[in-house]
C-alpha cells in the first residue's frame, strides 16, 4: 500500500538522516557514559524528602584510586518558592574524598551519606570497605556531583579509572537510573584548574542530542489518558568551584518531529537547569506536532553558546565579539545533561526512566577550577 511504503521510506530516510546528523561531527567528544574516565559528572542528584539518589562509583583499575568529589546544591534560596530571578540557586558546594581499592565498587545514598565504620555487618547497607566519610546532603538538595580522580596528595591525575551511575529513587517505589558522564584525562598537570581542551582532559561536546516523546503526548503503549512528561537536567562543563562562580549558559534548542519540522528556542540558565521540557522557555519547542500518530516522537539538539573571554562581560553568553567589550567571544562553557521521563497512566500511576543524552562534536576550552587542597 502506498502509505506504508511511503512511511517505510520516510522511516529509512529519517533513520539515515539521523545517522548522518549524528556522525556529521566526525570528532567524537570524549565525554562518555560507557567508558571509565578521570572526571565523573552526575548532573542530577536529588534528596528532597520524596526522592533520594543512590550513587554508585567503581574503580576499574588494578591500583588504588582516589577521588575528590564535589556536591553542588542548586536548590533555590527559598525552597518554598519556585526558582526565579528573585529566588536564585544556592550554588553551595561541599566536597569530600573517596578512596577505592583496585576494582572496588562503592555506593551511598545522597540523603544519608556514608560513615567510616569497620563494624558494618555483612549484608548491611554499608558493608564493605568504606571509601571515606561521605557527608549527607542537606534536606531539599537538588544538584549535581562531580568526582575528580586525584592522587594520594589530592592533586588531579589522569588515571581514567572511574565509572559511576545514579539511581533516582522515588516517589514511592518508582526509580530511574543513568550513567555518570565520564571525561577522560590525557596529560593531567595536577594543578587545580582542569582544562577540558583535548590536551589535559578531553573536551566537552559541542552539542547534545536526544530523542524523546513530545511533552505531554500520549504514551503509545499505555494508551488513552496517559502522558509522557520529560524533565531535563543540564549542567555546564565549566565549573569554578574555588571561587563559587556559577556559569551562565545560553543554549539554542532545535527540536525536530518525524516530518523534519523544526521548532527552536533559546534557554538560559545559571549554574544548573532542572525543569520540565515545557517549562524551559517562553516558546516550547518540545510540543507534539503533526497529530496523534506522527509528531509524537522528537529529536532534539541543544547547542550551547560561547561566553565572553576577558573583558567586562566575562563569562556572559555571547554570539560574537561585539557582545564582549575588551574581550572575545571564544569562551567555552559546554553543556552536559540527563533526561528523565515519567510515563503516567490516567489512574495516576507512573513509571520513570532516565536516559543519558548523546554527545556530538567537541568544544575544547571548558575548565573546572577545583578547590585548592592544603
Amino acid at each position: 500500500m502506498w502509505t506504508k511504503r511511503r512511511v517505510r521510506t520516510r522511516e529509512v530516510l529519517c533513520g539515515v538522516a539521523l545517522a548522518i546528523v549524528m556522525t556529521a561531527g566526525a570528532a567524537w567528544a570524549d565525554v562518555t557514559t560507557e567508558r571509565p574516565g578521570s572526571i565523573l559528572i552526575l548532573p542530577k542528584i536529588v534528596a528532597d524528602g520524596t526522592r533520594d539518589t543512590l550513587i554508585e562509583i567503581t574503580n576499574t583499575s588494578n591500583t588504588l584510586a582516589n577521588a575528590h568529589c564535589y556536591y553542588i546544591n542548586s536548590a533555590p534560596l527559598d525552597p518554598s518558592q519556585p526558582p526565579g530571578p528573585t529566588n536564585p540557586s544556592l550554588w553551595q558546594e561541599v566536597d569530600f574524598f573517596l578512596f577505592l581499592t583496585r576494582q572496588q565498587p562503592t555506593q551511598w545514598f545522597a540523603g544519608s551519606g556514608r560513615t567510616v565504620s569497620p563494624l558494618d555487618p555483612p549484608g548491611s547497607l554499608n558493608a564493605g570497605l568504606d571509601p571515606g566519610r561521605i557527608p549527607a546532603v542537606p534536606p531539599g538538595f537538588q544538584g549535581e556531583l562531580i568526582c575528580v580522580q586525584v592522587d594520594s596528595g589530592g592533586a588531579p591525575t589522569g588515571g581514567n579509572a572511574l565509572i559511576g551511575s545514579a539511581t533516582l529513587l522515588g516517589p514511592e517505589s518508582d526509580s530511574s537510573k543513568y550513567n555518570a558522564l565520564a571525561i577522560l584525562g590525557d596529560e593531567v598537570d595536577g594543578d587545580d584548574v582542569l582544562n577540558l581542551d583535548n590536551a589535559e582532559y578531553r573536551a566537552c561536546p559541542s552539542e547534545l542530542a536526544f530523542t524523546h516523546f513530545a511533552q505531554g503526548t500520549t504514551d503509545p503503549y499505555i494508551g488513552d489518558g496517559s502522558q509522557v512528561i520529560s524533565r531535563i537536567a543540564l549542567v555546564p562543563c565549566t565549573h569554578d568551584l574555588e571561587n563559587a562562580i556559577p556559569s551562565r549558559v545560553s543554549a539554542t534548542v532545535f527540536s525536530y518531529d518525524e516530518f523534519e519540522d523544526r521548532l527552536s528556542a533559546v534557554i538560559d540558565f545559571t549554574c544548573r537547569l532542572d525543569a520540565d521540557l515545557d517549562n524551559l522557555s517562553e516558546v516550547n519547542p518540545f510540543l507534539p506536532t503533526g497529530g496523534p500518530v506522527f509528531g509524537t516522537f522528537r529529536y532534539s539538539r541543544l547547542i550551547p553558546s560561547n561566553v565572553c573571554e576577558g573583558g567586562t562581560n566575562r563569562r556572559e553568553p555571547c554570539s560574537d565579539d561585539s557582545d564582549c567589550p575588551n574581550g572575545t567571544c571564544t569562551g567555552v562553557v559546554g553543556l552536559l545533561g540527563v533526561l528523565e521521563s515519567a510515563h503516567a497512566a490516567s489512574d495516576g500511576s507512573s513509571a520513570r526512566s532516565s536516559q543519558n543524552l548523546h554527545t556530538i562534536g567537541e568544544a575544547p576550552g571548558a575548565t573546572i577550577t577545583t578547590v585548592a587542597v592544603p
Partner: protein
Amino acid sequence: MLTMKRVVGPLTLAAATLLVAAAGAGAATTSDQPAAIVIYPKVVYDTAPVSDTIIEIANTSTSPIDLHCFYVNATSHCTNTGAPCDTGLDCGGVGACVPGWAEIDFSVTLTRNQPFYWLAGTGRNRSCAAASTCEPLPLNGTGVCAQGILAGQPCTNAAQCGVGPCVGADQSNAGTAVPPVPESLFFIGELKCVAVNSDGTPSGRNDLIGTATIVTDLGDGLIDAQSYNAIGVQANSRCDGDTALVCSSDDDCGADGPCVSAVDSNNILVLGPNDDPEAEYQYCPETLVLDHIFDGAPDPVGEGIWMTDLTLVPCSENFALGQADLGRSTAQFLVYNEFEQRFSTSRPVTCFDETLLSNIDTRNNARSIFSVNVSGTIAGQSLIRPVGDGLIGVARAMKVVNGQTIEDISAQVNGDGLRPVFAPGVGYEIHQLGERQPQDRIVIP
C-alpha cells in the same frame, strides 16, 4: 599621588619611633597564633554550683605532635581539715586556709590537624567513663595498609587490612591519658602544655592552638559559659651564625644562616627577648594591659552591676622539683579612669592568683581603687607590671543580676567567706605591651 605635609619634631619622632617599636616588638606571647607552649591560666572545676572547664587543643600541622602537660593545683586547703577553702572562715575559724601548689603531669598525642578536648573534672582516657559524648581513646587517625591486597588502602587498625599492619605514621593518640583534676569538690589552677619530641625533650614546633570554656550550671535554666584562648608561647629559630638573631627562614639570616631551631634538648625552657641567644622561646610581656569595667559599676546595657576577676600565673615554673620556687612576682598596678586620673597599688603573686579586682588592694571592695565608688567612671584601664618573674593572665567579667551592690558583695566576701557566684560572665584575654628583658624559665621533668 596625594601628598600631605607634616611637621615632625624630634619629640614626635622619638615618640613615633617608640610607639612603632613598642608595637612591633616581636611576637611575644600570643593568644591567636599557633605556638609550642600553650597556657590556660584558669582551669576551674566545682561541684556547687556545677562547673567544669572544657579544654580544647588542636594540632594545626599535618604531622602528629606529642605534648607534655602540667596541671598546677592552686586550690587552698584548710590546715585542720584538708578541705578546699577560700578563706579561713571556711576552716571553721580554727584552721588556716593555705594556698597550695602541686602539679600533676600527663601526656597527650595529637594526630595531624586533630582537634582534641577533655573536661578538667573528668579527664579523658581509654575507658572514658564520663559523659556519654566522650569518645574513648585511642583515636587512631587514618593510616594505610602496608601489605596484601589492601596495600595502600586507608585504615584505622590492622584488622581492616587483613594482612600486615595499618601503618599510620604515628598518627594515633596512643599514649594519651588525661587524668581528672586532683580535687573532688573544688579545683582552681592552671594548665600548661609543652610540645615535646617522642623522647620527651622539648620540641620547637609551633603547631598548637587552644581554647578553654568554663561552663557553669546555675540552675533555673541559666547556663554560664566563658571562653578564652590559651596563651601561646612560640619557639624561636635563630641564625646559626649569629644566635642573637631570631629568624623564620634562611633568607632572614643571609650569610649568618641557616635558620635553625633554638630549642635545645635540656629540660629548661628559656623564655626571653629576641636578642638573648639563650632564649629558646618568645618572651613574656613587660606589661599587661587590662581594660575593665570598674567593680560595682552599673551595666550601661541593662540591670545589674559588673565585677571583674583577674587570674595571674607566672611565666616561670619549676615542674621538675614540683616546687613553687619559681614564679614569684609582685604585680604593680597602675589604674586609669576615664578622667585620666591615675591610681596605683601592688600585690604579690606566688604561683597563682585569682582575685576580684576590687580585692586586690583591700578587703573592702567598695573602697578599692578598682571600684566605681572610687574611680567615678565606668571604664578603666589597668597596667600590670610584674617585678620578679613574668606574669600572664586572663580576665573574667561578670554581671551581678540579683540586685546586690558592691557593698553587699564586700560584706558577703568578708562575712561568711562564701565565694560569691556571679553570672553571667565573659572571659577575655589581656593585652600585652613591651618585651620582658629578664629570662623566664619553665623547668620540666
